[in-house]
């Protein structure tokens, strides 16, 4: 057992049982017994006032981690455009690099990239850009991208490596982490430097956002993390900044890919960039029928927002699935989420509860959505929404 109880110090107070998030401790004969479902989160160790619990780890592998320096950002490009999540990472990366007194570098893979695209990374805070250009790297492919990043990490030994938690990031970075034997924390919502130990503290949600966990990678480098889009602010452009571009020329025969990209199909109209929207107007069962979404469309237009829906509305065929927000739909975090005729079932809340401002309009004062709403109006949405449309139109004109 990796958690050892020092019997002489244990008072049998049972505090460890109370604080265990996994119900993994029980008191047997006045002593705590750790059950099989313990995940070694360490809450009990921290809680024990008597120092009666210790975590025993077997011989740790020695790895010279002191030679790892620098904060690196994977700058994701698609169709030659850098994705804005990379700018958010550069802003945070700048802060981390400053605290560690080390350089901030961007890594960019692609083909025939415009000079301004590359310089943009420097203008937004990077001291250096490692650039790998090759035909094989034009579009994201698992194996060549993994190979290039792995080689760069092994050669240049960055201490921290960050990437966006996008469809590319979440396919690529876990592969790199396994290859270089680095710890990886996904979907971080917070990144800080521990001032004492100078290590990266990675905070992320778990259990669908019901709890937060802070994670470290104590013995392995680089410390890798992916970050959700629109969680951190973007770095601003300062064209006065200068930096260095290091061209990396990967050998062509190392860039093979067993998978082939046959075609790319864009569905901008269908995908309704809900995930990008700053304002979302969303409709649920309370709308009553399909044609009433037209009213919400007007509100969306008046506020400059996108149109969302609850599962109830989508299941009733009032609006296509691409608009669905919730556990089985999209997760969004706009500045303002206006929920009209949505009761606020937990499966819907999971998809939008990190919105900055939640506005609820519902005729049922007991609707659960009012518990999480920043502002709410108890009333008939068919009366309230037309008035809102009128007022917002006035304001924006």
């Amino acid at each position, binding site marked *: 057992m990796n958690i050892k109880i020092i019997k002489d110090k244990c008072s049998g107070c049972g505090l460890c049982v109370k604080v265990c998030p996994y119900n993994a401790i029980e008191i047997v004969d006045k002593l705590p017994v750790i059950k099989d479902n313990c995940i070694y989160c360490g809450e009990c160790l921290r809680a024990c006032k008597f120092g009666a619990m210790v975590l025993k780890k077997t011989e740790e592998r020695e790895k010279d981690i002191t030679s790892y320096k620098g904060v690196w950002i994977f700058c994701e490009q698609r169709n030659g455009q850098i994705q804005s999540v990379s700018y958010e990472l550069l802003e945070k990366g700048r802060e981390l690099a400053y605290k560690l007194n080390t350089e901030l570098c961007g890594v960019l893979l692609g083909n025939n990239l415009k000079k301004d695209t590359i310089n943009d990374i420097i203008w937004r805070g990077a001291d250096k850009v490692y650039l790998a250009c090759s035909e094989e790297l034009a579009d994201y492919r698992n194996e060549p991208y993994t190979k290039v990043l792995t080689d760069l990490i092994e050669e240049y030994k960055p201490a921290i490596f960050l990437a966006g938690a996008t469809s590319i990031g979440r396919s690529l970075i876990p592969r790199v982490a396994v290859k270089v034997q680095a710890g990886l924390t996904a979907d971080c919502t917070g990144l800080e430097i521990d001032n004492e130990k100078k290590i990266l503290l990675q905070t992320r949600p778990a259990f669908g956002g019901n709890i*937060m966990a802070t994670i470290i990678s104590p013995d392995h480098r680089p410390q890798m993390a992916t970050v959700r889009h629109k969680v951190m602010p973007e770095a601003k452009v300062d064209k006065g900044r200068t930096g260095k571009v290091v061209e990396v020329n990967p050998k062509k025969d190392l860039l093979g890919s067993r998978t082939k990209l046959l075609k790319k199909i864009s569905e901008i109209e*269908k995908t309704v960039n809900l995930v990008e929207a700053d304002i979302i107007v969303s409709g649920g069962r309370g709308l009553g029928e399909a044609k009433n979404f037209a009213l919400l469309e007007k509100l969306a237009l008046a506020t400059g927002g996108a149109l969302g829906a609850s599962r109830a509305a989508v299941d009733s065929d009032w609006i296509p699935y691409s608009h669905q927000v919730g556990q089985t739909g999209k997760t969004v975090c706009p500045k303002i989420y206006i929920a009209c005729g949505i009761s606020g079932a937990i499966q819907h809340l999971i998809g939008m509860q990190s919105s900055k401002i939640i506005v609820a309009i519902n005729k049922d004062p007991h609707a659960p959505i009012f518990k999480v709403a*920043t502002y709410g109006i108890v009333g008939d949405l068919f009366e309230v929404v037309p008035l809102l449309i009128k007022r917002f139109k006035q304001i924006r004109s």
Partner: protein
Amino acid sequence: MNIIVCIKQVPETTEVRIDPQTNTLIREGIASIINPFDMYAIEEAIRLKEQQGGQVTAITMGPPQAESALRQAVALGVDRAVLLSDQAFAGGDTWATSYTLATAIKRLGDFDLIICGKQASDGDTAQVGPGISVHLNIPQITYVKKIEEINKDYIRAERMIEDGFEIISSPLPCLLSVVKEINEPRLPSLKGMIKSKKIEIISWSNNDLNLDSDKIGLDGSLTQVIKIFTPPPRRGGQIFEGEIHQSVNKLVDLLKKDII
């Protein structure tokens, strides 16, 4: 076709509650379910078996109670179930988990396809699938929303990305992680339920896998959780009841600066 589905038993997260006094999770009476995304993986595997013939094996790493998840999978139509359970595996992060699963899969023999769900609803990392594909050195296609064509050597699939989708081909064997758009999972069948009660689960501990202790479980983990806390709860805010015009005006005043 020999198809392997990696599944995980997770708590039913919609039921997770925080005790306001101790700030910890209340786990009593919370059901354990098959990770929702894995249900789509299981369904796709069974559909492929129905079309192409072959067998589907479900594999999971977890405590002994994870056996009930495997039996649930058999009730849906899976042919074989493997449980990797050992105290030595406990506390493993995604590196250790993917390494352990990959080793077990190798031990099962030849396979054509591994299907995983996109991510697990408790950890939400989506790292184990890609980790397995690296450990086994097979290609991967993530975010699969439709399999267009498949035979014993080749697969062509639609991969969902932010603004549309890609069509990717790969030789087999390969690993897929699937999204919810791919299918509608079936409910168990009575015959399946009867089979799931009787079937013998293949159970392996580290005695069977012989993995280095410093590569599995807590010792094999490269990351460590140092703190767990509840996020500041969203408190209910200002609710306006009463006369509609007044309520609307108040609301608009509050939102004005963010709308412009």
